[in-house]
């Protein structure tokens, strides 16, 4: 190879020294590049481009290089410069300085990202970063609504219609069209209505009655599809929970019955373990577990395939009505206790352990996981009758919504996760907005066509 010149590797500066021969410039360029790549030996890709001249400008000390260029001019007279030296110097000037470039920075700074997607959400400060209105968006009058811990008279279906049972009539409030209609009225024998539940695709609405019957209606036609006769003791059916085609009813004597609504004799299984009335009944999102809370202060978790409870939790010191399964973490259940307990407890149902217990200061009448954010909503009674938004898992209070004049009895969430509906003994039904981000917006991600960009969202 040409004797070439040496480079001072240590300081990242390249000091060219002339060689004896008169090499042509292409080989100079080649040679320089070789040393440059030798320096950055750890990166494999630059070796591939060893044929090309890569000016390592980012590591070149331009001031020094310029100094070195000007100094020889002073020492030698221009005549003494050999032709190659001159040409080489010219090449250097061109490549290093580009005729004295000016570097400009674009000034109009865009708004810096508030929340980088790489930042874990738990690290965010406790102060809420989104605006949650303190006032309810809408208040409606629901006079004479029965308020009892064993009743569940409010449900918000995935068709965006709220069903609320007042006395002996079920009203439907369409949240999209904001119109209200009467669905059905029961006759005196089964009066009053004790529970209301939409099934998952809102083709049926189940109405539990005081005489232990459950009626299934078709909301499109307001016609009765079926009547399920319940237990023999004629006790009210206060809790309902749907699991696909299975409707589970919980009654005031502590009996939980699983009904398959498609077959002739609907009763599939009966769970007998609670000693007092059932207040809360919820199926897990996977449909594998059923959580039931009763007036006997017990929380039971049942596996769909077994008739004995999987877990029996007696940590609560008051009746357990508020139950909510976590949508983003499997096997996580949150439960809330009544007047003397006032706590929210988190359970891992696969291991049967209590993960956390948070004291809230007032009875917990309802619990919901926010579908769009990692948050928990709880509704409370005296003294504040408030709704609290908790950040999960830090359990920091994000917002406290106080507007009801008496304990909040019923709590429901809109299908897009943006709104809450609450009803209380002060005879009002209030709609609150808690989030702007609708969960529906997430779906465009899943409908990406397979292309180069799509692959990287999964790599993340």
């Amino acid at each position, binding site marked *: 190879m040409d004797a070439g010149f040496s480079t001072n590797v240590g300081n990242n500066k390249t000091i060219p020294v002339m060689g004896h021969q008169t090499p042509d410039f292409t080989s100079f360029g080649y040679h320089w590049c070789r040393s440059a790549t030798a320096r950055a030996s*750890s*990166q494999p890709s630059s070796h591939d481009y060893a044929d090309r001249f890569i000016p390592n400008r980012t*590591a070149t000390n331009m001031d020094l290089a310029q100094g070195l260029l000007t100094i020889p001019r002073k020492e030698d007279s221009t005549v003494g410069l050999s032709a190659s030296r001159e040409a080489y110097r010219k090449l250097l000037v061109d490549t290093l300085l580009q005729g004295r470039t*000016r570097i400009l920075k674009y000034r*109009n700074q865009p*708004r810096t990202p508030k929340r*980088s997607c790489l930042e874990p959400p738990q690290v965010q400060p406790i102060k809420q970063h989104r605006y949650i209105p303190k006032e309810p968006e809408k208040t409606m009058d629901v006079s004479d609504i029965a308020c009892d811990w064993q009743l569940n008279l409010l449900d918000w279906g995935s068709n965006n219609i709220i069903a609320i049972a007042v006395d002996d009539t079920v009203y439907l409030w369409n949240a999209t069209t904001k119109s209200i209609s009467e669905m059905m009225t029961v006759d005196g024998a089964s009066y009053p209505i004790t529970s209301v539940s939409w099934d998952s695709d809102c083709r049926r609405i189940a109405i539990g009655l005081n005489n232990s019957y459950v009626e299934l209606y078709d909301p499109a036609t307001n016609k009765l599809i079926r009547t399920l006769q319940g237990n023999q003791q004629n006790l009210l059916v206060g809790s309902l929970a749907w699991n696909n085609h299975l409707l589970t009813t919980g009654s005031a004597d502590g009996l939980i019955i699983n009904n398959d609504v498609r077959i002739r004799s609907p009763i599939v299984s009966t769970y007998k373990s609670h000693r007092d009335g059932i207040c809360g009944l919820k199926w897990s999102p996977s449909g594998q577990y059923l959580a039931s809370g009763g007036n006997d202060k017990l929380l039971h978790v049942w596996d769909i395939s077994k008739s004995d409870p999987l877990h029996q939790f007696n940590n609560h010191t008051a009746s357990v009505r508020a139950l909510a399964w976590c949508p983003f973490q499997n096997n996580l259940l949150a439960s809330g206790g009544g007047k003397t307990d006032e706590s929210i407890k988190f359970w891992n149902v696969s291991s049967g352990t209590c993960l956390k217990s948070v004291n809230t200061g007032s009875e917990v009448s309802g619990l919901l996981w926010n579908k769009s954010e990692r948050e928990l909503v709880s509704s409370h009674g005296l003294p504040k009758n408030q709704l609290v938004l908790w950040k999960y898992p830090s359990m920091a209070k994000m917002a406290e919504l106080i507007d009801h004049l008496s304990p909040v009895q019923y709590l429901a969430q809109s299908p897009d996760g943006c709104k809450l509906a609450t009803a209380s003994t002060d005879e009002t039904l209030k709609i609150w907005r808690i989030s702007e981000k609708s969960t529906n917006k997430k779906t465009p*991600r899943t409908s990406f066509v397979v292309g180069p*960009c799509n692959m990287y969202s999964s790599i*993340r």
Partner: protein
Amino acid sequence: MASRTISKDIITLRGSAAIVSEFFGYAANSILYNRGIYPEESFSKVKKYGLTLLLTQDDGVKSFITGLTSQLSEWLEAGKLQRVVLVIMSKATSEVLERWNFNIETDAEVVEKGVIKEKSDKEIMREIQAIMRQIASCITYLPCLDEACVFDVLAYTDKDTTVPMAWVESDAKLINNPQMVKLHSFDTKIHKVDTIVSYKNDEWEDEE
């Protein structure tokens, strides 16, 4: 013969400047998306260069990039732009983490004399497509950006250009001891654009 080449293959200086500045806009968007500077939800898909690319919907960033590309286009037509650099810095420490360097070589003859060149549109699109794919694939070797980052755009211009209102003089925002990777380049016969990404060296990789 001559009539055949009329439609798409002729490149004028203005057309070439438009292609390059448009490329830069899409490349900037792609870099912002892939490096996670802005949340992924704020981007929407478009079809360009035969690929599905992502453009930001954030108004601030959109207007930043459009202002930028119009100025770049102007400089390119005047033949004064030498380089465009997109610098990614940590928000907290303002330390430069990545430097996306787009070198531009302008054919001076075209700027001075207004000569028209010929190159197939498709060919240029294909070259740009290759670069966009490389940008998207770069996250396989670039170090993770764990912290919140902001970006800046630098333009290396000739000394004699007048500085427009929206631009200020700046330093080069270099990285010490960077790792460099050279990506593909594309050439419109009037402007040749090279892409190099240099990034801050993590602790020495043990794959030696």
